[in-house]
């Protein structure tokens, strides 16, 4: 048979009478295929057109192979494209492996990428790699069975790897060769491969445990002057009969290396952390020089701005290696002044924000912060600031003056800025941009007419334009620009040239991995539909919404055949559902003025006590496959026993802005010292996210509260100890623009809660309640934050029994309120016992100045808390003095200082408060049973004058507000 090329020659120039595709069902429509190739019926056949056709079809990525056959027919040649479709990875899962490794690690090991082209050989290679990973984690007898399913219609291959991991092997010892300098038992103890030093046998083997054991063994040697020690894992001896593993190590301790520091003092720990030879466990010229530089930099940060460092290495005959670092610290300086001059367009604060060089400050940088490289970086940052705002010719220089103003070793740094003219964009023109895109782009571009002209702005605009096009289905969009000086001085004309390339659309959305979840729950969260322009932004947003449901541990999104040139593409979502249940357990303690007992009248303001607490929670995820969660959270402490059952439907009815919640609460608590309450409560809430900052909540609550152990006037006990049913509808508006809710530096938080209780809602008492909070945060400087918050609340009872139920009143004061009080100790008190009885109004105001203290993690706070809980809204008063011992309607002041230590879960907080006008009140001593004898002549229950301690301390997690 002739070669294809030779055969082609015999058809060259003949008229094409038909073009067909075999098989008839093709990945693209016949019209799309014909539009793609240059061959036309009625035109003569050209070999080059044939090659181009094959090339273009192949470039779609939809074909694994293409050939063309020709048949002579009357009048010309009939062409038929014989095609074989390509297949793509549509889903990969691995099951049957206890963690570690987790499924993510297993999938990474398989190297099967979602949406990428699939070749059958890949499955065997993936099995091999997964088995290898399992062995590294102790599963030496694991078996993997791959199951592939082909979806012809979507050209997908779905691969499930079913693992039979069997038992994980355990460590059983250690074999070491070489001079280890330590007994084997000591090495084993360092490795951590034994549980509780062997009392509970050997640890199961995992890759992480093996590596950390090796690291622990290695880390001993540098601490004992053998920093060149090599600890090598030679092999892992697996013993199948007993399913154990023995790591075989080779240890070469190398010569002793003595590192000495001359000319300055540092602890050996500091030296080890500064010198890279310890971390790298290697000695070469580069590392020694790097260590020298690091030492000099360290001393420069300590105020020795002229510090230099050098080293000498020697190998004496005794086999040791000696490394001497010589540090010449020079004089210790202080940065007395950093002054910026010549700046007109930007103020000092704007420029200093970009500088790391700074003058000495009290406590934090006692010597200031300066080094020549830091100053150079600052100058560059200032230049960049100006250039990005159109000052193309800006000149920024520095002068460093020692012994400034005659003070020895005081340095002044002057930053001199010559701004030059500011350049502006005179006219911005577009090429290749449609009218509707132009209108949209103008809203997001920086370099529009009248704006400063700068390379940075153009670079940002380039990113914005390309992002816009990519998210509008133009993945091949290209951007260029031209600029020319305009007729006016310091003005530029700009032209943005966009080549959009072909628009790509969504062919369909393919979701895989659902077992329990209803498909419409997922589909409703995906904002793309077939026929939409392919948008990476939409793909990512949908992925985020799916993650936000909280029922998937993995949401992978990909485009099938991402590099292919086909006009529409499948969008893939591969999901892994989370386990059905999650649990949490917590153990802790509350420390504060919480002691005193439930029947003792001795300490109405509490005494310092400790309340241990234990919490347990369990959640059932993805209830009914709807993405809803039902959870039970319980808490047991000496102050409180609580159980909260909630049912949460996030993204209610598929709307990401709505969430729905039903909850039931049982709470038995004594956290307010006046009474013990038994609260049974149910509520239904619909939350609506209006925008990123604004949220509305609508809520109906019904509760039944029974009080006991009331430490109040005996004649009020019968009234206030009756169970009270309260039903109310409430609505909250929350506006939160804080930069960081845990530790805010700027922004505002406002909440307003309005509630109406009525017999219409099943309430025995009718009242209206308003609770509002407004907090603002200002960054005075880079590290100085002024924060303030005001709380206001009022209750107006309009029906139902009097007095107003205790449990519905406002109680305040304490860690998250006015820190002049212990928790819940603000406001009116019982005239006889002195215990707080709550009020119908509250007004609190707090001002805090937050500042850094030492390093980046320890900060301080100066605060003033002011306000109180008042008997009624018309009794709110800002007066300083307490009117009398039975009148608490005045503003209690607390002045204090606090420490904040930054942790990953928020700052740990300690606050000390001094209150010059803390409340005084009458109280009785004795037990509740003796209350009727209080202050009765001849009884041994004396009436006493008491006062809330003027000193209060609070310990908690998180800022006060």
């Amino acid at each position, binding site marked *: *048979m*002739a*070669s*294809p*090329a*030779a*055969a*082609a*020659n015999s*058809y060259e120039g003949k008229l094409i009478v038909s073009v067909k595709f*075999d*098989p*008839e069902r093709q990945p693209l429509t016949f019209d799309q295929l014909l539009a793609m190739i240059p061959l036309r019926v009625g035109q003569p056949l050209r*070999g080059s057109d*044939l*090659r181009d056709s*094959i*090339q273009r079809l*192949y*470039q779609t*990525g939809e074909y*694994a*192979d*293409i*050939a*063309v*056959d*020709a*048949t*002579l*027919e009357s009048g010309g040649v009939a062409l*038929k494209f*014989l095609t*074989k479709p390509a297949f793509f990875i549509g889903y990969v899962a691995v099951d049957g492996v206890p963690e570690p490794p987790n499924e993510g690690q297993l999938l990474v090991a398989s190297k099967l990428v979602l949406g990428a082209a699939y*070749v059958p050989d890949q499955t065997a290679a993936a099995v091999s790699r997964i088995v290898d990973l399992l062995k590294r984690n102790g599963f030496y007898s694991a078996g993997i069975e791959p199951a592939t399913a082909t979806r012809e219609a979507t050209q997908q291959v779905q691969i499930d790897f079913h693992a039979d991991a069997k038992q994980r092997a355990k460590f059983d010892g250690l074999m070491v060769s070489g001079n280890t300098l330590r007994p084997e038992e000591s090495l084993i103890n360092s490795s951590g491969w034994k549980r509780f030093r062997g009392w509970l046998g050997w640890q199961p083997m995992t890759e992480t445990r093996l590596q950390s054991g090796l690291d622990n063994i290695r880390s001993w040697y540098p601490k004992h002057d053998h920093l060149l020690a090599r600890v090598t894992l030679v092999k892992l001896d697996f013993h199948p009969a007993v399913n154990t593993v023995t790591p075989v190590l080779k240890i070469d301790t190398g010569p002793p290396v003595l590192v000495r520091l001359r000319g300055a003092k540092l602890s050996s720990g500091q030296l080890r952390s500064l010198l890279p030879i310890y971390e790298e466990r290697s000695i070469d010229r580069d590392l020694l020089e790097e260590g020298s530089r690091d030492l000099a930099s360290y001393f420069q940060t300590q105020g020795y701005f002229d510090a230099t460092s050098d080293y000498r290495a020697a190998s004496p005959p005794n086999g040791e290696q000696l490394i001497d670092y010589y540090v010449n610290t020079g004089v210790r300086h202080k940065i007395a002044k950093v002054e910026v001059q010549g700046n007109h367009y930007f103020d000092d604060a704007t420029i200093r924000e970009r500088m790391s060089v700074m003058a000495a400050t009290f406590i934090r940088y006692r010597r200031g912060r300066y080094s020549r490289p830091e100053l150079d970086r600052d100058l560059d940052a200032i230049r960049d600031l100006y250039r990005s705002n159109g000052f193309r010719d800006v000149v920024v220089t520095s002068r460093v003056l020692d012994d400034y103003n005659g003070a020895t070793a005081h340095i002044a740094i002057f930053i001199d800025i010559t701004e030059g003219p500011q350049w502006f964009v005179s006219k911005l023109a577009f090429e290749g941009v449609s009218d509707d895109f132009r209108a949209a782009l103008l809203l997001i571009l920086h370099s529009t007419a009248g704006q400063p002209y700068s390379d940075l702005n153009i670079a940002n605009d380039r990113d914005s334009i390309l992002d816009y096009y990519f998210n509008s289905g133009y993945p091949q969009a290209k951007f260029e620009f031209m600029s020319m000086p305009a007729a006016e001085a310091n003005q530029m004309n700009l032209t943005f040239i966009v080549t959009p390339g072909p628009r790509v659309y969504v062919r369909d959305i393919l979701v895989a991995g659902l077992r329990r979840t209803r498909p419409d729950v997922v589909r409703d969260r995906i904002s793309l539909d077939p026929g939409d322009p392919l948008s990476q932004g939409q793909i990512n947003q949908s992925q985020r919404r799916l993650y936000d449901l909280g029922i998937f541990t993995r949401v992978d999104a990909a485009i099938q055949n991402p*590099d*292919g*040139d086909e006009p529409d593409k499948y969008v893939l979502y591969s999901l892994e559902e989370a386990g059905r249940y999650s649990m949490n357990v917590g153990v802790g303690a509350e420390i504060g003025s919480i002691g005193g007992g439930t029947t003792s009248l001795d300490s109405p303001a509490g005494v310092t006590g400790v309340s241990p607490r234990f919490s347990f929670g369990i959640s059932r995820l993805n209830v009914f496959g709807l993405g809803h969660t039902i959870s039970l959270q319980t808490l047991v402490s000496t102050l409180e026993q609580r159980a909260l059952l909630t049912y949460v439907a996030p993204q209610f009815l598929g709307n990401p802005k709505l969430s729905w919640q039903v909850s039931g609460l049982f709470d038995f608590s004594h956290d307010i010292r006046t009474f013990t309450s038994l609260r049974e409560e149910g509520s239904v809430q619909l939350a609506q996210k209006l925008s990123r900052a604004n949220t509305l909540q609508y809520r109906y609550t019904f509760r039944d509260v029974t009080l006991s152990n009331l430490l109040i006037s005996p004649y009020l006990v019968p009234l206030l100890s009756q169970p009270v049913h309260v039903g109310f509808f409430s609505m909250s508006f929350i506006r939160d623009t804080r930069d960081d809710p845990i530790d805010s530096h700027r922004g505002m938080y406002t909440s307003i809660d309005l509630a109406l209780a009525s017999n219409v809602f099943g309430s025995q008492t009718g009242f209206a309640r308003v609770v509002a909070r407004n907090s603002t945060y200002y960054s005075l400087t880079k590290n100085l934050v002024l924060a303030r918050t005001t709380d206001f609340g009022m209750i107006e009872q309009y029906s139902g029994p009097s007095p107003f139920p205790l449990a519905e009143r406002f109680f305040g004061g304490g860690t998250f309120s006015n820190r002049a009080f212990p928790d819940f100790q603000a406001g009116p008190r019982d005239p006889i016992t002195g215990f707080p009885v709550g009020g119908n109004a509250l007004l609190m105001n707090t001002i805090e100045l937050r500042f850094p203290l030492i390093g980046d993690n320890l900060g301080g706070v100066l605060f003033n808390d002011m306000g109180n809980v008042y008997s009624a809204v018309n009794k709110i008063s800002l007066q300083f003095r307490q009117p009398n011992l039975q009148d608490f309607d005045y503003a209690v002041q607390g002045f204090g200082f606090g420490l904040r230590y930054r942790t990953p879960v928020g700052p740990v907080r300690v606050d000390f408060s001094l209150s010059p006008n803390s409340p005084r009140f009458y109280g009785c001593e004795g037990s509740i049973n003796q209350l009727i004898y209080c202050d009765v002549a001849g009884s041994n229950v004396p009436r006493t004058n008491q006062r809330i301690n003027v000193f209060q301390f609070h310990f908690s997690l998180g800022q006060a507000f």
Partner: protein
Amino acid sequence: MTTWGATCLLLAAGLGTLSAEIIDRIAATAGNQVITESQIDQEIRITAFLNREKLAISADTRKQAASRLIEQALVKREMDLSHYPLPQAGEASAALAGVKANYPNEADFAAALESYGVTEADLTRRLLWQFTLLRFIDYRFRPGIQIPDADVQTYYRQQVSGWEQQGVKPIPSLEDSRDQIEEILTQKRIDQALDQWMSEARTQAAVTYRDATLADRDAGNTGRDAGINK
């Protein structure tokens, strides 16, 4: 049996009212670039014509041609991605005239082309490709190559030693030879850089062969038969 298989079987058996035959197919791929059977055939013919060799289409010449075409595809892709300017069609005119000069007249030239199964347009494209490759080298590699003076001197000393043994007199001075030596060393470095780049580009582009016999020249790249056998 699949439609595909049935089609192949029917075609292979030569059934049907009029016989159909494969006139082109994918022979190899480099990324999303395709090398077809007809391109390989054409490459062999043009190379034989330019070298004035006897046309021999064998397994070996097919392998060599496939390898050259893959390199072309990789270079063209890189030039496209990096927006390197391509040479104009007219730039090949002088080279074409040089080829024609080897023949007494146009008629002999045309006859020679025909005897190799090559058209003048094919030949012009091939000559243009040579300019494209030169341009690619100039843009991609030449700017990054610097020849240290020490290398020039070392090379000169080696040359001097050779000249002395050959009895060359007078021996040119270093300064007289410098430009020539620098160009020689530059060409060497360009060749090394091109080889290295080509090797990396082949790996990155995942070169595959539909016909396994073509794969021998590319170690590490196994043939991948996609199943069209007619």
